[in-house]
């Protein structure tokens, strides 16, 4: 791939979408909702498993960091307690990211 004279032609999907838009076949915004996030196409069980993994993983990381800091500094329960709380909050944040509208929604903070 040293020289690439022609600009890459848009994919078939893109051209089809443009054609459908010209004809007014798709209501505006219908495509945005479909390609929203990684939960699209998952069953309720799949979504539940994803939410569980997101929450638990944040807690696991926080526990590991808190325990490690305590072990290093010899302040047994302090950092563990702090990081468990932070980890729970981070887990909720992960779940929020999962379901929040991506890209400039008014409530989006990430």
């Amino acid at each position, binding site marked *: 791939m040293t020289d690439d004279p022609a600009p890459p032609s848009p*994919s078939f999907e893109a051209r089809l979408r443009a054609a459908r838009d010209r004809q007014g076949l798709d209501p505006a915004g219908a495509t945005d909702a479909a390609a929203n996030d990684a939960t699209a196409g*998952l069953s309720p069980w799949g979504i539940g498993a*994803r939410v569980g993994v997101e929450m*638990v*993983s944040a807690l*696991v*990381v*926080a526990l590991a960091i808190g325990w490690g800091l305590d072990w290093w500094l010899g302040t047994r329960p302090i950092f563990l307690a702090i990081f468990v709380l*932070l980890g729970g*909050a981070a887990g909720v944040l992960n779940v929020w990211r999962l379901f929040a509208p991506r890209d400039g929604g008014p409530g989006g903070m990430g």
Partner: protein
Amino acid sequence: MASGSNIDALGQFTLHRSLGALGASVNFTNANTMMLVAGALILGTLYVGMRPKAMVPGRLQALAELSYEGVLGMCTDTIGHEGRKFFPFIFTLFGFVLLGNLLGVFPLFFTYTSHIAVTLALALFVVLLTTYVGLRMHGLHFFSYFVPQGVPKALLPLLVPIEVLSYISRLISLSVRLFANMMAGHVMLEVFGSFVVMLGGAGLLGLFPAGLSFAVNVALIGFEVLVAVLQAYVFAVLTCIYLHDAVHLH
């Protein structure tokens, strides 16, 4: 394999040395063999599939083109036009995970994605790469990713650690999701397979439940194929989303 009357559901995940004496000297396991098989299959499919260069593609060429266009579409839709740069990486990752999951559905084949060591290594690579991409593109400004906008300054000492934890937890969630899905599916297959053998050997009364377990296993195999493709897709899409965050910093 069911040995005697108890079900050994986890024995299928044991690693063995393979490739004889040469393999033993470098600790080359059955997981490594399957990785090589997966890589060879991907390269072979793409090479053989694209050789005809036909205007109207045949089956293999259609497969190669569909996977190429699908992953390219995923990259450009999720990351933006910078996504083309990451296409080789995403395609390799997707192909490796997909083949690992799919090959595991076949009997006697080892599922290397059912080991946390493999998925954690992949996730570690993804997280390190996204961090590197963010630092490379934005310099130290990358760390503003951990500072949410529009919140009072007084809350920042609380919110920044939460953001950092959320960022690091990607490592665990990405790897555990794939590993748990593959492992749970294979344990279920093993358990119901053992039911078939044990109940089938228990005389006339056991034949009906054995048939039922067999039917469940047939359905589970189909479900496993679905999970295999879905989890590979999810892994690739999440990598794209993380790269998007690193490239656009929000």
